[in-house]
């Protein structure tokens, strides 16, 4: 182990004179930066602010006495996400170990106060439970779409009573990402097929929609929909959250459509011709032959799109919503905490990084899964 790492170091970092010079410059520099950050994090930084405002960061201005609703909703979403992971790759003990670190870490930072740690433990347990279920009971995978749909309805039902306008924090960011990703996929697929349609009116409308959405900023679309919805449909009385989700979905559907279209074009013409020669209808050809192969090609960009949605979620501040980043700003707006900017921003950065890495990790597993199931 040590021998191989020494060998690796000599080969890669000290192989040629230029490498040696570069390594001598860069390695101490990196070490110095790492040490300073670690030193600050362990001695100077006062992390109690994160502990005290964890609830605000996670669920925004959602009333404290109703927080159980938010935790329940989080647990349901976690279980659904876990079950989704289980369809792609099996739960292994080391996954459980990594997940268990989260409540443990919170417990340590909280100086043994179990309140936050218990909520986190519940969410982690829900994730593992869903994950284990679909990993080892193949039959349960068939129930996934129905279960996810029911789960979503329950989440909304549980979260709604205190007022939809109070949704916020990381929970809102995740909810917005989930709803947008799930809704924009079918819409994007329809748009992609529409853009290739033989009916020129449909083709022109879809092309026009995609091109317009891709040439304007997201923030403009979201703001626009927010203003326009009450004018177009005043009787619906849609909440800001719903309008935000609609804006995001409308915008990102165009991007999904372009990814899917590139996948459709990657399916060889011979596939369509072979299917036609068997007498299969055009609808069935698109649904069963072309689309599955197209989606396989574009899994990576589509998941990249999910990451993009998650990282764009802070833009909902423009319509007055409190997402994860905005919640952090709200804490800093308190004069009492004015000197804790670095602590809060570091926490936001690390959390965004962790969630993003998790999405990327799941995406890589999904790609492997797709590759092995159809060689």
């Amino acid at each position, binding site marked *: 182990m040590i021998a191989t790492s020494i060998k690796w170091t000599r080969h890669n970092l000290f192989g040629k004179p230029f490498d040696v010079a570069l390594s001598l410059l860069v390695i101490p520099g990196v070490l110095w930066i790492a040490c300073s950050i670690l030193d600050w994090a362990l001695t100077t930084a006062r992390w109690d602010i994160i502990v005290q405002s964890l609830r605000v960061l996670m669920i925004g201005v959602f009333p404290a006495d109703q927080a159980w609703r938010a935790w329940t909703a989080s647990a349901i979403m976690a279980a659904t996400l876990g079950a989704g992971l289980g369809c792609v790759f099996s739960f292994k003990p080391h996954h459980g170990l990594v997940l268990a670190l989260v409540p443990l870490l919170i417990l340590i930072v909280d100086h043994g106060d179990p309140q936050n740690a218990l909520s986190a433990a519940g969410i982690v347990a829900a994730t593992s439970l869903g994950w284990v279920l679909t990993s080892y009971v193949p039959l349960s995978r068939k129930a996934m779409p129905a279960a996810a749909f029911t789960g979503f309805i329950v989440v909304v039902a549980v979260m709604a009573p205190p007022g939809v306008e109070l949704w916020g924090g990381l929970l809102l960011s995740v909810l917005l990402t989930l709803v947008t990703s799930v809704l924009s996929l079918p819409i994007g697929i329809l748009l992609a097929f529409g853009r290739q349609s033989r009916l020129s009116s449909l083709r022109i409308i879809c092309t026009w929609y995609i091109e317009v959405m891709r040439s304007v900023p997201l923030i403009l679309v979201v703001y626009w929909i927010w203003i326009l919805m009450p004018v177009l449909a005043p009787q619906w009385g849609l909440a800001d959250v719903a309008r935000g989700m609609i804006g995001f979905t409308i915008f990102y559907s165009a991007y999904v459509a372009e990814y899917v279209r590139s996948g459709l074009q990657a399916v060889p013409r011979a596939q369509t011709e072979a299917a036609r*020669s068997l*007498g299969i209808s055009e609808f069935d050809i698109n649904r069963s032959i072309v689309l599955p*192969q197209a989606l396989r090609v574009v899994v990576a960009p589509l998941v990249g799109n999910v990451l993009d949605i998650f990282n764009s979620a802070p833009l909902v501040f423009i319509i007055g919503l409190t997402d994860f980043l905005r919640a952090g700003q709200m804490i800093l707006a308190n004069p009492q905490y004015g000197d804790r900017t670095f602590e809060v921003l570091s926490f936001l950065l690390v959390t965004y990084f962790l969630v993003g890495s998790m999405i990327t990790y799941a995406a890589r597993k999904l790609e492997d899964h797709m590759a092995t199931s*159809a060689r």
Partner: protein
Amino acid sequence: MNAIVEMKSMNKFYAAHHVLKDIDLAVTRGEVMVILGASGSGKSTLIRCVNGLEMYQTGSLVVDGYDMPVEADRKLGGERELAAIRKGVGMVFQQFGLFPHKTVLDNITIAPMRVRKKSREEAEATAMKLLDRVGLKAHAHKYPGQLSGGQQQRVAIARSLAMEPHLMLFDEPTSALDPEMVGEVLDVMRELATEGMTMMVVTHEMGFAREVADRVVYIDQGSIIEIGKPDEFFENPKNDRARSFLARVLRH
């Protein structure tokens, strides 16, 4: 006359390019017709017209009792005849055209289930019988990518046969294969021919043409130059161009 395919002064253009010129051709039921010609002569286009993968512009084409609509009518929605024709006409391609995301078994059952509305049990039973016939029963649950070219092409033949076609089209079925795999595919085709399947075959396998064909058609630059019994055609071609074509392909 018991013709399954009947072309009368059929013409096809790609824009200004005249691909098929006044084709008159009839294929009788049970006949094996081999179509020969240099590359680019229009022989693939000719058989691709029979199941409507290519459209023709003027003349007439009757397949299995249905009028194949000309291009102008296809655009107006003359698709019902097309669907009926494709149900009864199987086709095997140079590049196999198997669906890579489906197992061999699913490749074979999808059309009978979707188009002929057969139950899964019935379709799978037929599929296993056909796989047995082409010698690939053991590979039913593999994906196409796990099979050799010759095996894939035999699966493709089985897939077409699952629709119980009245006519089989072969578009250079052995051209993409390694030489040692050509034989196994030709064997399956030979067997089909002896069972009385009507076949139109575009191929460069002169030995197969000579042995199995009832008639040989020679096409050059989009026109039929010569039609005849294989023995007559190969021994004593009447046309100069056919003679020089044979001299070129039979030299090695």
